[in-house]
């Protein structure tokens, strides 16, 4: 039984001038329970749109998404979301942000406190509980965003280029932290990213999308020996081979997209 089942998903938008844009077309794939799946593709291929439909923020034009065999009809606490822009509530402290989902669940106060403490420790946010988001660095904000989503224990984690706004070094550190959390907490993760390296490093499976209208170009199973540290993994020939495989597919689509947009400018 798949955790996430995307069936024949199509989404068309009305552009400002009235013409229709088909963002994704007849997309189907599945994500198994506790699997880490990344989605990559050229800009504008609709990967974020796909994620937002799974999250329930946007309704598809055709097709459906089933989560735990139930069709998605709107956003909900079973599917946690983490955005690239962090989307922290600026008027709430770090602690209060993490509390948010727990407040919605109407849990008793001491249980909320304990859970918040647990996730503050897990994400390395000790001492920052009473700070406001504006006082934090990008990396810290992202950790708060993750803590907030994890705190109410959704089964599915949807991540929209969460590390995209971070500098390269912080990004690498956050990736490892995310993997550690994923292994410990056992979540199903659907991860959208621009970076082929990131996708290959993090996931068990990479879905490559075509340029607009987005369809599935290929699905690559990532079989890496992840027993070593980051250095060992990233310098291994296996990693290079998989990375090249995915990259070439994405590259082909990027070039197609580039050619078509050049034609339009004429």
């Amino acid at each position, binding site marked *: 039984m798949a955790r996430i089942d995307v069936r024949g998903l199509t989404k068309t938008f009305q552009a400002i001038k009235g013409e229709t844009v088909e963002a994704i077309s007849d997309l189907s794939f599945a994500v198994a329970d506790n699997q880490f799946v990344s989605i990559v593709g050229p800009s504008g291929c609709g990967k974020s749109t796909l994620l*937002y439909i799974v*999250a*329930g*923020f946007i309704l598809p034009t055709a097709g459906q998404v089933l989560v735990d065999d139930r069709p998605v009809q*709107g*956003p*909900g*606490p079973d*599917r*946690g*979301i983490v*955005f690239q*822009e962090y*989307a922290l*509530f*600026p*008027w*709430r*402290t770090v602690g209060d942000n993490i509390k*948010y*989902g727990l407040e*919605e*669940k109407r849990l008793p106060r001491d249980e909320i406190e304990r859970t918040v403490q647990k996730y503050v420790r*897990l*994400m*390395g946010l*000790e*001492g*920052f509980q009473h700070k*406001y*988001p*504006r006082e934090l*660095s990008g*990396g*810290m904000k992202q950790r708060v965003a993750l803590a*907030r*989503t994890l705190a*109410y224990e*959704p089964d599915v984690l949807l991540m929209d280029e969460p590390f995209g706004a971070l500098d390269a070094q*912080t990004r690498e*550190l956050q990736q*490892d*932290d995310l*993997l*550690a*959390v994923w*292994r*410990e907490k056992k979540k199903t993760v659907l991860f959208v990213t621009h970076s082929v390296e990131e996708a290959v490093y993090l996931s068990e499976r990479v879905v490559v999308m075509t340029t607009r209208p987005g369809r599935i170009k290929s699905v690559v199973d990532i079989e890496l020996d992840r027993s070593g540290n980051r250095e060992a993994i990233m310098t291994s020939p296996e990693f290079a081979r998989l990375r090249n495989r995915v990259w070439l597919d994405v590259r082909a689509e990027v070039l197609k997209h580039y050619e078509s947009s050049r034609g339009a400018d004429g």
Partner: protein
Amino acid sequence: MASTATAPSPRATAPAPSALSPRGLASAGSRLPGRLLAALSRVLPIVVLCALWELVTRTGLVGTQIVPPFSTVCAAAVDLLRSGTLLQHLGVSLYRALGGLALSIVVGVSLGISMARNRHVENFFDPLVSLVYPLPKTALVPLTMVWLGITDRAAILVVFLAGLLPIVVNTYHGVRSVDRVLLWSARSLGTPERGLFRRVVIPASMPYIFNGVRIALPVSFIVVISVELVASKVGIGNLINGFGGLGIYDYMFATILLFVAVAFVADRCAVRIGTGVMRWHEERDAS
């Protein structure tokens, strides 16, 4: 963090130097005279100006009938305060200004929110707002004079109308510019659609609403004075006009200065309250 060492995460930002560390003590020690000096240096040009004022008038460079000396004005100010005249009229003006402001906040915020949330309300009021925008609200003073006479109500009405526009516009923009990822995050965290307004929209638009109020505050003071200059038997504006008409210029200037001081303090209070209430906001107003 799970997989790395148990030592505190190196990625956390370094703690601020404690007040008792050598660096902390040094900065604390230098902070006090440093700030005092800064405050004094800001006031110095004003002091120089006042000294110049006194000099120019006392030496007869400018006739004292034209501009009374600074010291005389100060004496008049003291007398005004002691006799209670000022407080009496000030009370009236403040009542009108703050009363009108309170009304514009209540009506303005409600209207701004409804316009932002409801297309039809927006379409209805938008042209009206654009139409009234270029009209200086003080132009309505003769009209309110006809409608309500030379009363507190007339003044409050004008102040209310003057403050309405900035508050409506700022509230509207505040509500409209709530980032959709905040709304989406709240939905994913379990907030139902109807809960979004209270939980997300209102806190997120507070800085804008407050900005509107901050703009409307000095407007209320200025408008009250204008109204009282033209159509009132009491109040600070009327007092200024009265002294001017009778030729008692030292008292006239004294009243002006005292009023400015009050308005200045009011604005500072508003800023203090604002920064206190919105400690979380990104752009901290330096003034």
